[in-house]
């Protein structure tokens, strides 16, 4: 998945199906309520209805799975991740990502640790259009890691490492990073910033 700016991707079609189902249901109900009813719906119609819904469901699950598989295929495998836990020594193909960072979530803030050991608090600096791999980890309670601008949520339970990657927005600026799981009284303050700096990168570089 070359452009992980949100996992929504092809799911827009599912969003449309959802809206269509909802509007059809509401319309049918309004017709039934406010127009004089006429006939008894044949039973075969419900069978067709159920089969259509089941087919749409299976198709939707396949589309979603394809998107997710595509996304995860870019993330290093589990064995490598097991070695990472807590440490910053990450063995990742240097070509795959422009930046690799460990995000350490605690009550109530974020620390971003670079591979060279330097760290920033509540701010992650990236270049426009960069592919960034984040190893998300927490030590106290369950936290969530979400960057709305790139449409990505990761939930992390204590002591686990969940890897996630995203493509930084191409427009320089400050983007919100927030905790998505209730993690104590300061949950609402647990925010950080994704700082996209510098010149916009050439689109062709990352294909």
């Amino acid at each position: 998945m070359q452009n992980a700016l949100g996992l929504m991707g092809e799911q827009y079609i599912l969003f449309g199906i959802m809206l269509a189902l909802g509007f059809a249901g509401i319309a049918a109900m309004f017709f039934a309520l406010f127009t004089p009813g006429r006939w008894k719906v044949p039973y075969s119609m419900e069978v067709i209805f159920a089969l259509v819904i089941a087919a749409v469901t299976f198709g939707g699950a396949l589309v979603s799975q394809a998107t997710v598989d595509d996304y995860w295929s870019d993330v290093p495998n589990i064995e490598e991740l097991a070695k990472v836990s807590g440490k910053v020594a990450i063995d990742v193909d240097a070509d795959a990502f422009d930046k690799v960072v460990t995000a350490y979530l605690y009550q109530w803030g974020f620390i971003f640790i670079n591979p060279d050991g330097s760290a920033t608090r509540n701010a992650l600096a990236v270049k426009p259009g960069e592919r960034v791999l984040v190893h998300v980890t927490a030590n106290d309670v369950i936290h969530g890691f979400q960057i709305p601008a790139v449409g990505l949520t990761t939930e992390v339970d204590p002591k686990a490492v969940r890897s996630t990657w995203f493509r930084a927005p191409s427009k320089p600026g400050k983007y919100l990073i927030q905790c998505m799981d209730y993690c104590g009284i300061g949950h609402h303050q647990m925010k950080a910033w994704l700082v996209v700096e510098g010149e916009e990168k050439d689109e062709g570089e990352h294909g």
Partner: protein
Amino acid sequence: MSSDYQYHKSLNWEPEDLFSKYSFTQLITTSDARLLGLKGMLLALIMLAIGGAMAMTMRVELMEPGIQFIGPKPYINAVTLHGLIMVLAYSVPFATAALYFILPTTLGLDGIKSPWAAHMSFLTLILGGVLLFISRPDFTWSFYAPLSLRVAGDIVWMAHIAIILVGISEFLGGIPLLRTALAWKKKTGGRWIDMPLSGWGALTGGLFLLLSAPMLSLVGFIMLTDYLEISAIFEPARGGDALTFLFMSWFYGHPAVYLPLVPLIAVLYHMLPRLLGRNLWSHMSGVIAFSALFLVGFGVWVHHFQPNFTVHSLLNFFFQFMTMLIIVPSSLHVFNWVASMWQGRISHETRATIPFKFIAGAVFMIIVGGVNGYLNGNIAVDTDFIHNTYWLPAHFHAMFLGFIGMMSMAVFYSIYPFVTGRMFNQTLANLHFWLWLPGIFSQVMLMFWLGLTYHPRWVVDYLPLPEWVTGQFWLSIAGFVNGLGFLIFVINILVSARWGKAVTGDPWPVPDTSMADQAVVQPAE
């Protein structure tokens, strides 16, 4: 045939004032199914008032960004109590109690089986509720470990015991439902598929309660022993694993949403033919939908923390597919209701009836809230903007407030004349409905909008982004509209119990439209 309109028409109680007929002690202690149901529903409505007060407090605080009225600690107390009360102390008890009320009549039995279990369930719930209020937990209604082992001060163990008691209460509450459904089989010796749909609701609802509630007690028990440092199953700092908690607690937590849903669907199947004045579209379709919902409903719980990194991706796919598949049995129910309404004329009398209006509102809201289950189960979209944004509360408020709230009002308004002997004020009841329908709908829509803009849940304060500020402001207004509707409901039922118009005979007279059907019916086969 059990979905026969004539059969439902005959199911009528005589309007009478049960409150003056029995003493308070009798009301509490008698095993009469109607009184058991009534006291369960009244307790649930008191809980609804308390949970609603919590909601109003939250809405006042969230009206503007920043912290104005209450700090983070009281805010999260309110959030926690609102969630726990509305799910465990209002929705589930109300739905089971409503089914206790109607079951003996619809199944043609003398009363419900094992009334002792219903009594014990009621008492255990009160005990659990009191402990919960004293401990004032602040770990949200999903009480994720290890957070729930560490916060809420020195008396958090009371909240753990309360969780154990609620699990016991729900287990006990399921016994009469299942046993009464089985008693129908024993008494009539009929085929299972001929059982009235209220019986099918009792059967599957009872099984849901009996199979899922023990897990809640177990989770509460392990939380208690973890807190007392006897064990360390959920506590990662001492070798436990938070994932164990997630797997265990959602095994209860997902079927838990069907605990109030299934009994109220069953009640709807009972009320709809009665109010429409003709047969239900299909009895068999309802039987299939109840069974399928039960079978699929136990195989979806991992979607609450998907994608799960410790299981094979095929298993993630399985849970995702099962979650989306839930829409099939649920939409079979809705199809049946809409087809029943479509089948013939809806008389003016029916349309003007308050319970019918609330039923229509409930069906409308279950469509609104139900279709987005198609999107929610989807791992890709879930990872984008659904997980723990306002989209999620939007979905379950459409279901809990929209369907279960509206249906419980339909139930309460329709049994009101039977238990007080008086009719409620129609104008006030209409006002209640016309405040709730737009109120709930706009509340849910605004929550969806906030979810699409990635507004996080469980926050006392939020960034002053224009879309969040506008959304939260109007969300608060919609919340107050719902609160006002509930206030009108309370005033109405209290005042009308004393000064309402006395009724005798059938309080819901609707013309028989089944004959009219035959005149216009054009078989499409």
